[in-house]
């Protein structure tokens, strides 16, 4: 090669990450080196990657073939707009998370910091390779390496049995999913059995084969993304992992599944069938609804966020399905709109969800407490984390002018402009689903208010919380990075749309740049101005002008006098912190309304209990309806087969004897 292409730079960055990990594992116990030097270096790597990807989005696709890998199938790598976009996501998010992790890392038992450093950076690098891979084998290797490294990160506190269980469940589901992906590649490789993506692109399979490939890929990537009913690992693994890792997994790793799904269904498969889209739509709807309902009733803050990730994945898949439908009905512009909304939401979710997870990390460090029922009033002790968390919360509940709203707005728009599909039912269905999306986002608002209000507001529910300390400097930098990201992404949607334009052109052959760009950076009008428009800048601007104005006016014409008094006790003399609404209490209406969703076991105290206890456990029904039965079936199978192994030598001899005779008869007859 004469000069280094962009793809080489991506490779160099990934290798840089790997080498950082190597250095770390070379000095496993050297705390200062790992936390103060290596992780920040990793963050720099993230920034570099983001810059490369930024240019890569607009560059033409580039290809490299490494002299590694399988005989006859060396590692093919390819950098196009799609992979660049997801690399951008990876780089930007990981930059914030790594710098946070540098501050977050503490001297403690569990995995040695050096080893953790290695695993973390292998995790990053493997995700980068997933985006780059251009043949089935390289993809699988990167994919499984990603799963493995994240598994070890999840189980870094492996002394606790439940964390081991979570890790086991996670790796198991990941592995099964990987099998699905492998099979899907196998189907797409077809009779030639050439596993390069190029060959798959050229290979025009017909009949039901594309559908089978699509369904297998959906299974595989759905398992990683946490689509119903394969979400089971997600709420277990996220709380188990250290917070930067949960941020990484929820913010970025889930998106690799989206990437893979996009790659398969738009790039590798040519003809999309409309009911694929409907399937995705319904799956996404179910997932989002399930996720948000369950996140509303959680009492563990990281579990709450994990379920909310499931919800967001559901929303993303909704957009995805819509894109498929439009694409299959040859409506490229609408497809571009829906796809833009989808990808935009991926980016936003990466930012606000990582932000929130990192905030829980700081809370965890300050209080050693994950249970919502034991937190509260942290705004006084840790203002930084609180206000940054507020940004994340507002974004997550899809409120203007933050980024969450922008993508959901686009999503709703793409739902609203559907009239005119050849499928009458779809025309009916889609607006109703739009209503459901509205319900989900409003519900997310409920959940987020619960999360924020109970963790940060009110009075401290425990004595120790009054000693809580705010996040350290490095942690603040990380949080700030992500928070500011949320705001900027919310304020300049057109910039993002321009970024997404090449991607949508690549996948669905159309883009929003022409229409959206025409109104200047401040006005977002994907179709046309009098049809729908939204300008977060004016929005925020007017609020920002208005508030001080009112403040000043009140001060100016009246007074700013203020007295501190005890809170009004409504005539109940002793008001303790325990009387505040607990997480269970806040979720109670939801438990009541959506009771069919849950599998709950509850104990009510009788009026005569000397020490009344109220117990209410809400569990995931899928575990009981789906997973345990499967386990039972396998168990039964083992029992049947184990019957062969009786321990009697005569019996064993009989086996070989019968085998011999039957084979002889077989050959003769």
């Amino acid at each position, binding site marked *: 090669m004469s000069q280094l292409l962009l793809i080489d730079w991506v490779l160099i960055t990934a290798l840089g990450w790997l080498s950082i990990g190597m250095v770390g594992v070379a000095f496993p116990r050297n705390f200062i080196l790992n936390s103060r030097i290596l992780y920040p270096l990793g963050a720099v790597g993230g920034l570099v990657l983001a810059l490369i990807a930024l240019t890569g989005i607009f560059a033409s696709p580039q290809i490299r073939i490494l002299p590694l890998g399988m005989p006859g199938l060396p590692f093919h790598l390819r950098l196009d707009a799609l992979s660049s976009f997801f690399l951008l996501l990876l780089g930007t998010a990981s930059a914030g998370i790594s710098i946070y992790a540098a501050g977050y890392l503490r001297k403690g038992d569990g995995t040695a910091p050096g080893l953790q450093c290695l695993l973390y950076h292998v995790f990053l690098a493997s995700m980068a390779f997933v985006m780059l891979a251009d043949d089935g084998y390289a993809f699988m290797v990167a994919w499984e390496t990603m799963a493995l490294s994240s598994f070890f990160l999840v189980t870094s506190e492996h002394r606790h049995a439940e964390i081991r269980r979570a890790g086991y469940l996670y790796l198991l589901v990941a592995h099964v999913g990987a099998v699905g992906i492998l099979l899907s590649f196998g189907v797409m490789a077809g009779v030639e059995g050439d596993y390069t993506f190029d060959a798959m692109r050229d290979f025009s399979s017909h009949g039901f084969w594309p559908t089978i490939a699509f369904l297998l890929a959906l299974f595989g990537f759905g398992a990683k993304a946490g689509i119903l009913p394969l979400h089971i690992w997600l709420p277990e693994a996220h709380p188990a992992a250290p917070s930067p890792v949960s941020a990484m997994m929820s913010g970025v790793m889930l998106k690799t599944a989206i990437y893979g799904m996009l790659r398969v269904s738009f790039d590798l498969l040519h003809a999309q069938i409309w009911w694929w889209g409907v399937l995705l739509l319904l799956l996404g709807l179910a997932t989002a609804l399930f996720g948000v309902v369950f996140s509303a009733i959680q009492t563990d803050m990281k579990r709450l966020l994990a379920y909310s990730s499931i919800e967001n994945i559901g929303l993303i898949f909704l957009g995805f399905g819509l894109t498929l439908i439009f694409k299959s009905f040859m409506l490229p512009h609408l497809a571009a709109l829906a796809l833009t909304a989808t990808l935009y939401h991926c980016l936003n979710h990466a930012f606000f969800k990582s932000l929130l997870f990192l905030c829980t990390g700081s809370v965890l460090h300050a209080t050693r407490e994950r249970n919502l029922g034991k937190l509260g*009033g942290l*705004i*006084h002790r840790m203002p930084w984390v*609180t206000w940054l968390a507020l940004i994340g919360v*507002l974004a997550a*509940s899809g*409120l*203007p002018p933050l980024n969450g*709203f922008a993508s959901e*707005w686009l999503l*709703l*728009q793409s739902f*609203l402009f559907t*009239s005119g599909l050849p499928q009458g039912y779809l*025309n*009916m269905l889609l*607006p*109703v689903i*739009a*209503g459901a999306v*509205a*319900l989900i986002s*409003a519900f997310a*608002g*409920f959940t*987020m*208010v619960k999360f924020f*209000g109970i963790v940060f*507001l*009110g*009075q401290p529910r425990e004595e120790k919380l009054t000693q809580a300390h705010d996040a350290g400097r490095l942690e603040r930098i990380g949080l700030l990075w992500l928070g500011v990201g949320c705001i900027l992404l919310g304020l300049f949607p057109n910039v993002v749309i321009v970024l997404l334009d090449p991607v949508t052109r690549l996948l669905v052959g159309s883009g929003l740049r022409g229409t959206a760009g025409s109104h200047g950076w401040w*006005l977002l*009008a994907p179709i046309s*101005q*009098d*049809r*729908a*428009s*939204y300008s977060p800048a*004016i929005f925020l601007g*007017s*609020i920002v002008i*208005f*508030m001080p104005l*009112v403040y000043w006016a009140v001060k100016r*014409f009246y007074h700013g006098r*203020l*007295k*501190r008094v*005890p*809170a009004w006790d*409504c005539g109940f003399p002793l*008001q303790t*912190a325990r*009387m*505040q*609404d607990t997480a269970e*209490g806040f979720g*109670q*209406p939801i438990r009541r309304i959506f009771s069919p969703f849950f599998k709950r076991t509850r104990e009510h105290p009788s009026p005569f209990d000397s020490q009344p206890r109220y117990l209410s456990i809400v569990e995931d029904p899928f575990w009981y309806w789906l997973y345990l039965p499967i386990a039972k079936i396998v168990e039964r199978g083992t029992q049947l087969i184990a019957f062969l192994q009786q321990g009697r030598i005569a019996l064993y001899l009989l086996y070989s004897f019968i085998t011999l005779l039957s084979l002889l008869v077989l050959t003769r007859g």
Partner: protein
Amino acid sequence: MNFYALFAQLLALVTALILAPILNGWVNQCRAWMQNRTAPPLLQTYYTVSKLLHKDALLAHNASSLFRVAPYAIFSCLALASAIVPTLSTELIFSPAADAIALVGLFALARVFIALAGMDVGTAFGSLGSRREMLIGFLAEPALLLIFFTTSLISQSTSLSTIVATLAHRDFVIYPSLAFAGVAFTMVSLAENARIPIDNPTTHLELTMVHEAMILEYSGRHLALIEWAASLKLFAYSCLGLALFFPVGITEVADPVSLAMSGVILVMKLAIGGFMMALIETLSAKMRIFRAPEFLGTAFLLAVLAMLVHLLLESGK
């Protein structure tokens, strides 16, 4: 943007700020009459607000900075909202800045802030109120959105101005969907504005309070702002309803004459609307909080029905 648009925008804003408390007073008056009580004066809200403004603000020891920011945020959100709603004219500067969806988002923003403020001090009743408010909110919000969807399907746009313009200046067509949407909207706006049958604005029995429970800790200027904001919200909703379902007299061109014209019409419409609302409130009884989901669920279903009706009967396909 031309000068008139700016003028119309400012005018709309000022009208909202002025008329909102009066509308509130008017509704209370009507209700009092119907209940054979001596009515409070029409400007009662003004009196309350100014009284509160003069008083000192009492702040609980535990109250945080968020608690103090919230009133301003809520007030400005709702003011902006009422500026976006086309009250007099459809030619506004802000109209491209925020369409129907953004308007709903704006209401939601205000709601989230007030709910957080309610939880901030950490009394039992504050968080109770916030919980109920959020519950009502997440059921009402999608219903409202669906209503907007129906209208925007009719007018092929989600920008309020376009919607209202199309609805106002269509040659007379009967939209059955709008009937459903209208009923749904009424229910939603009752719920959103803390009105009977969902909430009782005049109660102070803690266990039944929703809105009042959240603002229990507020006093002085903060409370004043919140009260004013509440009336603004009511005003915004009423104007929205009128603009969507009785869009008569809203001008497209923003010249003074037609603006004044439409101003007069608006006042008349508001008077009637307020009376109707008072009537509903008097005739119905407040329901238990867990009946609220059913109520709002009905509204949601009506909204869905409206959309389906539109797609079936009116989309022409």
